[in-house]
C-alpha cells in the first residue's frame, strides 16, 4: 500500500522538477555573492529547470489519466495541457522581468524564485482532486503572490497593493475554508468523488446548508480568478505591482483558478440535481457580470496596466462561460482560449514594459506615435489588441468563437448574446490604444532605451502564434480534443 503510493511519483515528475527548480534557485540566489553573475546564473538555471519541466509535461501528455496519492491529485490531459500553458507563461514573464526596469536589479533573481513557487501552487491547483489539495494550491499561490506584489520596496504604491492583496486574500481564503469545513461536515469527506456521489441524495436542511457552503467555497476560487463580485482587488493590485509581476498574475493564477473551477464544476455538478442547477445558475450570473463589469470599467482607464487588468477580468468572464457549458466542447474551448490568452497577455505586457522602461510610467499618452519609431513593435501590438478584442482573422477571434459556439451548442443563448455585445464594448478601448499608437503624432522623443533588436524580435515572435493560431486553428483544436477531463469515481 505504502509502496504503491510511492510508485505514483513517476507521474508527478513535472511538479517535482518545478519544486526542485525553485529550491535550487533559492540556493543559488543565496550562495552567490557577485550580483551580476548571480543573476545570469539564476536565469539560466530557471530557464533550464522550466524547460525540463515542460518536456516532462509533454511526456505525460499521452498517458492514461490517473489519480495519485490516495486520490488527492489527478493527472489527466486537461490538467497537463493547462500546466504546459502556465509553464510557457512563466517562461515568458522571465523575459519580461529580464527586460524590465520596474523591479530592482538585485531582486530579479528573487522574482524568479517566487514565480516558480507560484507556478508550483498553480500546478497543484490545476490537478487538485480533493478539498485539501485545492486549499493548499490556493494558499501556495496566494501567499507568494502577496510578496511578489510588494516587491518594489521603496514604492508606496506597490506596498499598498501588496497590503490590500494580502488582506482581501486572507479574508476570502478564510471564508472559503469555512465553507469547506461545512462541506466536510455535510458530506463526511473531502474527496471530490465522494462528495459528488452524495450530492444527488441531499434534501431539506442539508441541501440548504450545502448550497450556502458551496457559495462560501466559491468565494476563494472566484477571488483567485477575479470574478465578479470579488474582482475589486484586481485593478489596484495590477496597477501597484511591477509590470513583470502583473503579467505573471494575469496568466498563471488565473488559468490555475479556471482549471480548478472547471474540475470542481464538472466533477461535482455534472448531474442535474437541484444543487447542480443552483451552482450553474450562480456561475452564469457571475460570468455575465464579470465580463460586463470588466469591459465597461476598462473603457476610460488612462493607465495601460489598469486597462489590461480590467480587460483580463473580461476574459475571465468568457472563460467562465466555457465552464458553464460543462462538456468536452467547453473544456477544449477553454484550453484553446487559455493558450491564445497567454500569448496575447505576454505580448501586451512586454510592450508596456518596454514603453514604461523609457518613460517611467504606463500612461496611455506615452504610447503616442509608437509606430513612427518602432513600426514592428507597434504593428505587432496592434495585431494583439485586435486579437484581444476578438477581430478575425486573429487567434482571439477563434478562441471567442469556440467558446460562444460551445455555449450556443448547449442552448445558452442569453449569455452568448451578452458575450457578443461585450466583444463590441471591448473593441472600443482596445482600438483607443491602437489609435493612440498609430494615428496620434509622436512628441518627437528619442527611441525607447533598452528596446533592443532582440526584444523587437521577441514581440514579433510572440505575435506570430496568435496569427497562426487564428488561421490554422484546426490542428491545435483537434489536439485539445484529446485533453479530456478525467472524472475520478
Amino acid at each position: 500500500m505504502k509502496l504503491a503510493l510511492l510508485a505514483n511519483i513517476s507521474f508527478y515528475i513535472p511538479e517535482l522538477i518545478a519544486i526542485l527548480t525553485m529550491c535550487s534557485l533559492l540556493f543559488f540566489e543565496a550562495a552567490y555573492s557577485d550580483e551580476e553573475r548571480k543573476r545570469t546564473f539564476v536565469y539560466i538555471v530557471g530557464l533550464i529547470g522550466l524547460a525540463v519541466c515542460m518536456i516532462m509535461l509533454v511526456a505525460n501528455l499521452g498517458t492514461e489519466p490517473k489519480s495519485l496519492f490516495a486520490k488527492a491529485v489527478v493527472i489527466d490531459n486537461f490538467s497537463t495541457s493547462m500546466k504546459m500553458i502556465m509553464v510557457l507563461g512563466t517562461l515568458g514573464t522571465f523575459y519580461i522581468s529580464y527586460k524590465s526596469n520596474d523591479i530592482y536589479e538585485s531582486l530579479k533573481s528573487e522574482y524568479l524564485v517566487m514565480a516558480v513557487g507560484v507556478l508550483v501552487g498553480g500546478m497543484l491547483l490545476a490537478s487538485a482532486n480533493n478539498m485539501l489539495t485545492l486549499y493548499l494550491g490556493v494558499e501556495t499561490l496566494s501567499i507568494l503572490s502577496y510578496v511578489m506584489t510588494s516587491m518594489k520596496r521603496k514604492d508606496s504604491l506597490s506596498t499598498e497593493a501588496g497590503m490590500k492583496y494580502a488582506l482581501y486574500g486572507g479574508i476570502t481564503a478564510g471564508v472559503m475554508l469555512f465553507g469547506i469545513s461545512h462541506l466536510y461536515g455535510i458530506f463526511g469527506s473531502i474527496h471530490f468523488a465522494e462528495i459528488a456521489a452524495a450530492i444527488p441524495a441531499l434534501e431539506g436542511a442539508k441541501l440548504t446548508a450545502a448550497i450556502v457552503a458551496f457559495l462560501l467555497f466559491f468565494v476563494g476560487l472566484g477571488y483567485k480568478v477575479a470574478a465578479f463580485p470579488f474582482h475589486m482587488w484586481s485593478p489596484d493590485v495590477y496597477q501597484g505591482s511591477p509590470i513583470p509581476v502583473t503579467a505573471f498574475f494575469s496568466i498563471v493564477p488565473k488559468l490555475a483558478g479556471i482549471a480548478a473551477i472547471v474540475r470542481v464544476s464538472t466533477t461535482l455538478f455534472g448531474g442535474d440535481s437541484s444543487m447542480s442547477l443552483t451552482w450553474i445558475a450562480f456561475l452564469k450570473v457571475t460570468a455575465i457580470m464579470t465580463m460586463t463589469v470588466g469591459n465597461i470599467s476598462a473603457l476610460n482607464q488612462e493607465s495601460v496596466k489598469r486597462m489590461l487588468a480590467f480587460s483580463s477580468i473580461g476574459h475571465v468572464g468568457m472563460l467562465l462561460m466555457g465552464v458553464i457549458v460543462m462538456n468536452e466542447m467547453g473544456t477544449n474551448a477553454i484550453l484553446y482560449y487559455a493558450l491564445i490568452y497567454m500569448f496575447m497577455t505576454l505580448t501586451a505586457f512586454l510592450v508596456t514594459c518596454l514603453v514604461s522602461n523609457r518613460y517611467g510610467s504606463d500612461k496611455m499618452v506615452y504610447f503616442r506615435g509608437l509606430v513612427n519609431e518602432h513600426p514592428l513593435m507597434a504593428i505587432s501590438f496592434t495585431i494583439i489588441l485586435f486579437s484581444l478584442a476578438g477581430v478575425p482573422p486573429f487567434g482571439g477571434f477563434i478562441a471567442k468563437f469556440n467558446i460562444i459556439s460551445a455555449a450556443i451548442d448547449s442552448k445558452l443563448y442569453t449569455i452568448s448574446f451578452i458575450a457578443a455585445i461585450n466583444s463590441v464594448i471591448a473593441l472600443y478601448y482596445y482600438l483607443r490604444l491602437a489609435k493612440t499608437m498609430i494615428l496620434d503624432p509622436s512628441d518627437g522623443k528619442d527611441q525607447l532605451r533598452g528596446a533592443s533588436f532582440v526584444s523587437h524580435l521577441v514581440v514579433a515572435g510572440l505575435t506570430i502564434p496568435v496569427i497562426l493560431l487564428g488561421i490554422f486553428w484546426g490542428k491545435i483544436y483537434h489536439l485539445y480534443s484529446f485533453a479530456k477531463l478525467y472524472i475520478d469515481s
Partner: protein
Amino acid sequence: MISLVSYLAISLLLFFIGLTLMIARKNIVAILLGIELILNAAALNFVAYSRFAASNIDGHIFSLFVIVIAAAEAAVGLAIVIHYFQLKETIHIDEATELRN
C-alpha cells in the same frame, strides 16, 4: 455532554466576530486578527465534524494544515503591514487610497 451543535455555534460566532472585525475596524492589524479568527473558526469546525459527524480523520489533518498555513499567512501579512507602516507611518486602512485611476 458537549454536542456538535455547541462547537458549531462557537465557530459560527468566531466567524462572525472575524467578519465584523474586518468590516468595522479600520486598523490593519485588527483586520489581520479578524482573518485569524475566521481561519480558527474553520479549524474548529473541522475537528468537531471529524469527531462527531464523519468517521475519518481527514478533518484533523485538514486542521493541522490550516494552522500551518494561517501562521505563514500571518507572517507575510504582518511583514507587509510593517513595511507599509515604515513607508507611510500609518496603519489606518482609510488612508491607503493611492491606487486610484
